């Protein structure tokens, strides 16, 4: 028998998509029965009370959670988000219901053994509710009380070799696509780079010393599966400098409609019949730079005009492959619309090497130059993108010692209001007005 009536939420149990309500109800029941004999350290009926408080929100059209409050684990300034219910008398099981962010493994691969060790811990010391995963990428433990925070942290670090993630004005837990672990498009090992930088910058991740949040995300190719260009202060997008590799025999198989060579690797295998594959219509004519053509049976690419958009490779992955001189482009300053409107990442480094042998020195050097500037000049709650807007892209180039190149812009500026610096003008700005007046009478 449910603790609270939930007529609104009950209506979200039908329909084919997995119902979070059904899952919550199942969890409430498992806790109530406690067949596993768990020694619950927070109220056994917290999930019932969560259903109750969410039902009340469905009735009112308003949330019943209060602002955070300062809770955390000793020595860290992030990783825990305080949360309190505004109807504690009605729902005592969720009066204190804090979130813990647990750093996810890169690529989000797991073993069942490891996941079970997490669920066991969280059943005992928390609600047993999670997000797999939060928007930034962390494993989210949803709902525990203040005294359990240190206990969970202790068990994570001592028994599971596992740390918390970031929150607040610090480096947020970096996130990546699955990269070369299972993708032929990967231009670098995003799992390795993401893991290295996450560990390299643990201090920045746990102890807020930044003006605001800072995010790294790693997309191993321009398809952008982890959306780094839209939502990370520094976006690392895999790319290559040399030629797309063409296997003409495989091109011929696409043209010949070989069933093992479906367009776009089978992405259109569905209820709509798009007709036979047409290389001219589907590949050559859609190339954004028109740098492809057929010469007889041979597909040709003018690689010097290719912008590596991935369309042809996505469409014919068995015939076309990324080049061999691989690295990544670095784009900076992306953020959601708060406050000055959304910003997409802007290209700062067209190509940077991704070299594990020197601990990615080119990348860490760049990161640290950017952080030095942002920590010095950034205002409270000012994202990197906003600082770049305020002080200018030229300033960013100056602090990172990067030479301006046309790749930095969509087009050159449309106004001539150039703020020349004195040292850029021959003879400087100190002049003798009397000398001037000898030739130009007052």
């Amino acid at each position, binding site marked *: 028998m449910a603790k609270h009536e939930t007529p*609104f939420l009950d209506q979200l149990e039908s329909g084919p998509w997995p119902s979070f309500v059904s899952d919550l109800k199942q969890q409430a029941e498992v806790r109530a029965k406690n067949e596993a004999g768990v020694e619950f350290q927070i109220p056994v009926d917290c999930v019932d009370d969560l259903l109750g408080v969410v039902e009340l929100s469905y009735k009112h059209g308003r949330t019943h959670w209060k602002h955070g409050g300062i809770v955390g684990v000793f020595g860290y300034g992030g990783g825990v988000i305080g949360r309190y219910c505004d109807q504690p008398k009605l729902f005592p099981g969720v009066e204190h219901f804090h979130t813990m962010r647990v750093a996810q493994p890169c690529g989000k691969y797991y073993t069942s*053994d490891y996941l079970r060790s997490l669920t066991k811990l969280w059943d005992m010391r928390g609600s047993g509710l999670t997000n797999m995963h939060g928007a930034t990428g962390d494993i989210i433990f949803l709902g525990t009380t203040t005294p359990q925070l*240190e206990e969970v942290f202790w068990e994570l670090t001592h028994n599971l070799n596992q740390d918390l993630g970031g929150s607040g004005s610090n480096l947020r837990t970096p996130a990546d696509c699955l990269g070369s672990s299972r993708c032929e498009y990967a231009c670098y090992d995003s799992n390795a780079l993401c893991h290295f930088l996450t560990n390299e910058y643990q201090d920045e991740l746990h102890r807020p010393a930044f003006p605001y949040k800072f995010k790294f995300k790693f997309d191993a190719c321009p398809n952008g599966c982890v959306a780094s260009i839209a939502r990370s202060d520094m976006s690392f997008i895999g790319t290559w400098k040399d030629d797309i590799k063409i296997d003409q025999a495989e091109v011929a198989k696409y043209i010949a409609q070989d069933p093992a060579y479906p367009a776009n690797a089978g992405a259109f295998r569905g209820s709509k019949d798009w007709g036979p594959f047409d290389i001219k219509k589907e590949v050559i004519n859609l190339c954004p730079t028109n740098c492809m053509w057929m010469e007889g049976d041979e597909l040709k690419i003018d690689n010097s005009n290719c912008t590596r958009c991935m369309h042809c490779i996505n469409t014919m992955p068995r015939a076309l492959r990324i080049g061999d001189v691989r690295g990544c482009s670095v784009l900076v300053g992306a953020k959601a619309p708060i406050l000055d409107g959304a910003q997409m990442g802007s290209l700062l480094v067209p190509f940077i090497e991704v070299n594990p042998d020197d601990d990615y020195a080119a990348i860490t050097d760049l990161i640290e130059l950017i952080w030095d500037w942002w920590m010095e000049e950034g205002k409270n709650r000012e994202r990197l993108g906003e600082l770049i807007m305020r002080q200018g892209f030229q300033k960013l180039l100056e602090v990172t010692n990067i030479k301006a190149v046309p790749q930095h812009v969509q087009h050159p500026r449309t106004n001539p209001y150039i703020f020349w610096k004195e040292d850029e003008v021959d003879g400087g700005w100190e002049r003798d007005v009397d000398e001037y007046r000898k030739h130009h009478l007052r």
Partner: protein
Amino acid sequence: MAFISSGYNPAKPMENRISDIGPRKYDEFYPEVIKKNKGKWSHHEILEPGVLVHVGESGDECYTVRVGGARLMSTTHINEICEIADKHCDGHLRFTTRNNIEFMVDSKDKVEPLKNDLKSRKFAGGSFKFPIGGTGAGVTNIVHTQGWIHCHTPATDASGTVKATMDELFSDFQDQRLPAQLRVSMACCLNMCGAVHCSDIAILGYHRKPPMVDHEYLDKLCEIPLAVSACPTAAIKPAKVTLANGTEVKSVDVKSERCMFCGNCYTMCPSLPLADTEGDGIVLMAGGKVSNRISQPKFSKVVVAFLPNEMPRWPSMTDAINKMVNAYSNGANKYERLGDWADRIGWEKFFEVCELDFSHHLIDDFRQQAYLSWRQSSQFKF
């Protein structure tokens, strides 16, 4: 319930403390076939919606079955995922960046038993636990935020709007009939933890009433300078207020016409609540993308300024989403993303074919970039 210590000693918090160890290393969790073929993959193929094969240069094959799921997930559900992974996948699995779960096996004969097992599992309420799909030219899982489950500033629920939407779009989760992939995202307030601003379709919770000021308690509960500085539009200033009983208290004044309804002040000061039954609701945005494929990444545009919160299934919202998906499906060319299609036909046509109303709310008036979205041309369609 007796307190059980983990070993932590509150009197000596630094004793035997372990910190700064980061996440577990990714490769301890790789399945064997991944470990062996990493960096040496030849190609992949989507065999049917939700089922992929990756082929290594070695000839090894990795079959993946992708299933959707609610990102709000219980340990009971995770334990069931583990049971499936043990039964079929040598105890390995992964999650995608869009809250899907991927079960990987190393030979084709293991795929059908895995699929059948996944298809057979349903929640008591009748929904699938592990629906197979989410690949290719279809709809994949919605990335979203907390909503009424766990956040203090949402203007709508996240899990509920997502469930309602995915039920409507379910056939497209299991099909690949669309012109290209269609990414739907959800954020429950304009702070956008979920960063939905570059999605083909974005569902966004939005408040429309400025915060109420709880004058009697504000100075007792809040640091007034923090509340003032929390406001991104400088709409809040310190004020002295006389209460009904004649007492003068320190409080704040909110310049309502400057409020953009973000809730940052409420985060700093619980005496400034802004949630409201009639004020809160849904904004729909469309036409964004993050991929660099063919066209450059682009922002989503606001296409529906406001829809009320209609619990529990938000029918006006799902109706508008359905209209957009159908118009896109009927009108776009193969490989054309929703935003590229809208750009090609023109946004005036977009509103016509999607049967959506246009209003003054949809014309940008926020700061300088607003100008860039107005039409500086005599080219338009009647």
